[in-house]
């Protein structure tokens, strides 16, 4: 793997607070902030979050293999990026995800079964975004970055930027991938956000791949530098370092909440799994690459750190494992017993005010369906 161009890591612009070997390091601009709580406790919490998130992922992958899900978008390897970011959010902040933010969803309190129902084909991810300030999964690449920007413009109009009140000032996070950075919509979102000084954190998980295409196809320079072209700051953080991601995201959120306009965070990470369960990465990438990244696993480094420093004991790790097992069971059972929608339901979800012609189509179809019931 080249260390030049868009894949360069290291140097002062690569923010890291916990090395792959589990060593705490300092960065001149960013420090981990436990928010007044006991730091070890917070880090243990992150560890738990990441393990549970990984379990959601592996469990879902297994459910797909067993035919219970149509497809699954794996986040394996991106746990630190998502938990670090998700745990830096304040309740009033709002998130616009792609289709892979299971860890962020978990942080926001969304029941993973709401996500499984999408990938099972029961619905399309029908949660109410206002329930957890977590928007709906968006499959068309990049579209949500504009939604985030518009939402942030709404936040501005609500007078919730730069008031100085930490319970009110609000930021909006737009998630997107390295591949998405090539979409017109994403670049337009940069332009609108810069033009209106909107409180958006553009959070790019650069997991090195857009399906089979490496990051070099999308950019010849590190992605965080894209922001330079639009006149707002961009930073690259070790996306497999939950402490660094937390610190950087927290700073970025505050920067935007304070009314300084948008900011880009590139979480430099790796998609350890396939693009989705229907993808076969052996067709386009070397297994050594995966081996290389396994050494940077986001969870192991926290475990090493906690263990080496005596901040967590066996009992703790066992309890997390147990919790993960319980979560696994809940997901398996919940998935298999998920109620189906009635086919007629789709007609009632198109409009707030149903149209006579669609109501008629519904009624005709209802009568048609009923004709079979009569027949049996």
């Amino acid at each position: 793997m080249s260390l030049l161009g868009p894949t360069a890591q290291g140097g002062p612009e690569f923010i890291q607070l916990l090395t792959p070997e589990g060593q705490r390091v300092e960065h001149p601009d960013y420090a981990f902030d436990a928010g007044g709580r006991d730091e070890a406790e917070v880090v243990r919490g992150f560890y738990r979050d990441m393990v549970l998130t990984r379990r959601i992922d592996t469990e879902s992958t297994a459910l797909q293999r067993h035919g219970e899900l149509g497809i699954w978008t794996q986040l394996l390897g991106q746990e630190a990026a998502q938990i670090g970011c998700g745990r830096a959010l304040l309740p009033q902040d709002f998130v616009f995800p792609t289709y892979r933010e299971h860890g962020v969803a978990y942080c926001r309190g969304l029941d993973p079964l709401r996500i499984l129902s999408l990938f099972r084909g029961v619905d399309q991810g029908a949660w109410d975004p206002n329930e957890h300030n977590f928007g709906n999964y968006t499959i068309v690449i990049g579209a949500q970055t504009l939604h985030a920007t518009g939402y942030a413009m709404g936040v501005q109009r609500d007078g919730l930027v730069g008031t100085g009140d930490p319970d009110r000032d609000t930021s909006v996070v737009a998630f997107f991938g390295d591949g998405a950075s090539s979409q017109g919509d994403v670049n337009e979102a940069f332009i609108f956000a810069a033009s209106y000084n909107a409180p958006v954190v553009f959070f790019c998980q650069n997991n090195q791949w857009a399906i089979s295409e490496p990051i070099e196809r999308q950019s010849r320079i590190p992605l965080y530098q894209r922001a330079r072209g639009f006149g707002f700051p961009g930073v690259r953080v070790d996306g497999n370092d939950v402490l660094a991601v937390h610190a950087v995201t927290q700073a970025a959120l505050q920067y935007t909440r304070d009314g300084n306009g948008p900011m880009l965070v590139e979480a430099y990470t790796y998609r350890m799994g396939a693009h989705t369960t229907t993808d076969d990465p052996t067709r386009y990438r070397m297994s050594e690459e995966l081996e290389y990244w396994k050494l940077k696993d986001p969870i192991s480094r926290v475990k090493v750190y906690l263990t080496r420093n005596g901040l967590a004991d066996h009992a703790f790790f066992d309890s997390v494992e147990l919790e993960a097992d319980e979560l696994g069971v809940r997901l398996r059972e919940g998935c298999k017993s998920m109620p189906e929608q009635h086919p007629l339901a789709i007609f009632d979800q198109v409009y707030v005010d149903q149209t006579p012609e669609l109501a008629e189509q519904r009624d005709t179809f209802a009568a048609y369906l009923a004709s079979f019931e009569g027949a049996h």
Partner: protein
Amino acid sequence: MTKMTLAKALNAGLRKAMEDDPKVLLMGEDVGKLGGVFRITDGLQKDFGEDRVIDSPLAESGIIGTAVGMAMRGYRPVCEIQFDGFVYPAYDQIVSQVAKLHFRTHGAVKMPMVIRIPYGGGIGAVEHHSESPEAQFAHTPGLKVVTCSNPIDGYWMIQQAIASDDPIVFLEPKRQYHADKADIDETAVPVPLFSSRIARPGADLTLLAYGPTVKTCLKVAEAAAGEGRSVEVVDLRTLSPLDLEPVYDSVRRTGRAIVVHEAHTNLGMGSEIAARITERCFYSLQAPVLRVGGFDTPYPPSRLEEEYLPDLDRVLDAVDRSLEF
């Protein structure tokens, strides 16, 4: 009672909607200081401020995409697309997001957005300034599509569209903007938004028109009356949903129908309307439903547009063909 052009009526309707609801925002290219290239938003930024009348960067996908976010935050964005031919960069946001978010979320998300598009030809413009994109939007479930043909409808329909909780593509026949004036009674009770209207009663044949062709068809009816033929004209007003009950009634009486629009004939609104009328009025029809539309060529250079657009003569020719069938 004030006499107004369609342009002024739309301006007045927008103003009223903004006064009535502080959540209503306008957004688009040049809608602010300039008041839009057609001046439909004239004076609104001055009175409601830059936060509510928003000049956008030059990017249509950006306009609609950010409007989606504003709607999710509880606002009611009214987006202006400068000309019909420039809506296509926003097409993805419109058909894959605006149209689908309510469905995707089983109703949790509402998309009370109005997308205003000055449309149609006849103003001597260059390429991309005379398109009629209605069929593409009407084919998309989740959107509603309406169009006004006169100042009174303009005044009321824009307010009704803004008040609607569903996303609405609001088509404004640009060559009518300054064509005629009408008396607008702000205290009247408007007809419902999603209803067609018999613009002129008749007995021998039904002409179906909307937006810019309503006026043409009224002239046709006038001319036909001179030849002793009684032509009914329906102003469809709503293209999705269609309100065809009055049309079926009419066709059952007249036995003949012609749909007239500027959009390309192939797969234009006329094809759907013809298909539905035929399904519902099969035994009443004395001739196939005919269609007079723009030809199936790109919109031509402006010196040829009079030939391209359905005009009095071409519609009269179709009236003859239908009656002689």
